[in-house]
């Protein structure tokens, strides 16, 4: 079967309007309270290696106005095109949303917005092995009363340095969703990470 045909068999959201709203609220809460882990209650059925939370974010946020870059293979690309209606970006630097199931694209290679329009920046949806609250990094910044703790399994070794450079570019920069299965957490560009 051709990838495009099989992709249409894997469904989008069961209840598109309500499921997108619920996923958006999880994403908004995650972005507003960096490091707090949210669960997507009704993720779509998506072709592997796409996980529930990452696939749900893509359907919730991407559309014809947002070029998407994926590294998850032709079946996932066809699924995203069919269910989100998004164009596929040729290079990471041209994407509004990136969904990385494999190696993380270097943050410095992604759209960071301009001085006047820092919101015209990429959002990276990164699939990781696991997320755990209450241990690991110490997070501080807007959205955090004193400190949130978050352990992320499955990030590249240079991540902390990459993130520090991204944070230093504020107000320009990339925003990050970390997704493990149906769970997600966010790191907006304002979040400071310290080793746990």
């Amino acid at each position: 079967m051709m990838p495009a045909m099989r992709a249409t068999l894997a469904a989008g959201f069961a209840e598109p309007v309500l499921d997108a709203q619920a996923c958006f609220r999880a994403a908004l809460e995650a972005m507003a309270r960096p490091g707090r882990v949210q669960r997507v209650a009704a993720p779509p059925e998506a072709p592997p290696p796409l996980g529930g939370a990452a696939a749900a974010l893509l359907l919730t946020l991407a559309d014809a106005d947002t070029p998407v870059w994926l590294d998850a293979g032709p079946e996932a690309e066809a699924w995203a095109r069919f269910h989100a209606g998004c164009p596929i970006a040729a290079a990471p630097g041209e994407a509004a949303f990136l969904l990385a199931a494999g190696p993380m694209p270097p943050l410095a290679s992604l759209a960071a917005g301009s001085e006047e329009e820092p919101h015209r920046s990429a959002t990276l949806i990164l699939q990781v092995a696991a997320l755990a609250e209450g241990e690991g990094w110490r997070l501080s910044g807007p959205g955090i009363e004193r400190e949130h703790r978050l352990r992320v399994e499955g990030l590249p070794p240079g991540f902390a340095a990459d993130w520090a450079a991204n944070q230093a570019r504020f107000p320009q920069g990339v925003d990050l969703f970390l997704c493990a299965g149906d769970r997600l957490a966010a790191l907006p560009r304002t979040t400071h990470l310290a080793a746990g």
Partner: protein
Amino acid sequence: MSAATGYNFGYLDEDTKRMIRRALLKAVAIPGHQVPFGSREMPLPYGWGTGGIQVTASVIGPADRLKVIDQGADDTTNAVSIRRFFARVAGVETTERTAEASIIQTRHRIPETTLREGQILVYQVPMPEPLFRLEPRVAETKRMHALADYGLMHVKLYEDIARHGHVAISYNYPVMVNGRYLMSPSPIPAFDNPKMHRNPALQLFGAGREKRIYAVPPYTEVRSLDFEDHPFEPVRARAGCALCGSRESYLDEVVTDDAGGRIFVCSDTDYCQGRQARQEAAE
């Protein structure tokens, strides 16, 4: 499409909601920065809070409980209309109690009752640009925000102090968010400004006519602009509420008769009624 109403859930179409949702996430990621969005025509005139309504419509879900206030009151025509609108197009429960609401849409006040985590405060914003009276050219104000060059505003405040002995701004008093962006708090009284600072709730701002969205994440620093020798002082009428006796709340002056009699009462009707109910119960 809801069979009962003939409207899409939350009134807006899904493409519009998605665009506003993207803008909201970027607004939260860049506290105080104005993000443009493609505002839609709403079945209410500008000034009724079409920006706030579009933000609420993009955020709200069936599990929410919505409160709407206009100048602190739940029972004005404006507040009642917006509450009914969302009850109809989103089927949500509504409330007048600040503590019971998950989303509070507001025009020109912050509730007296302390907000908590999990609550979202949506402000209706008539003019999002804090510099517009000082610099009408949009390209110039964008450049000033890019450079964090807010000298014009400091000069204006300093001239106020030189002329009046204090900053003569009682509403829409400009704030710095997270030490970076100058932001209009919308026309709330300056008395309310300190409530924005490190608030546990998420604060979202929608300006429909000007097509801008901005945000203050929870626990984020919000400072009213001031000078070391002239620190910001929230002002309040030197009186108690005639109904509940509060000496902490923001008061409206109400004319009571033709002879010029006047009293002060709480602007926040839910706060005032709650205090009166507790006083009656204690008697």
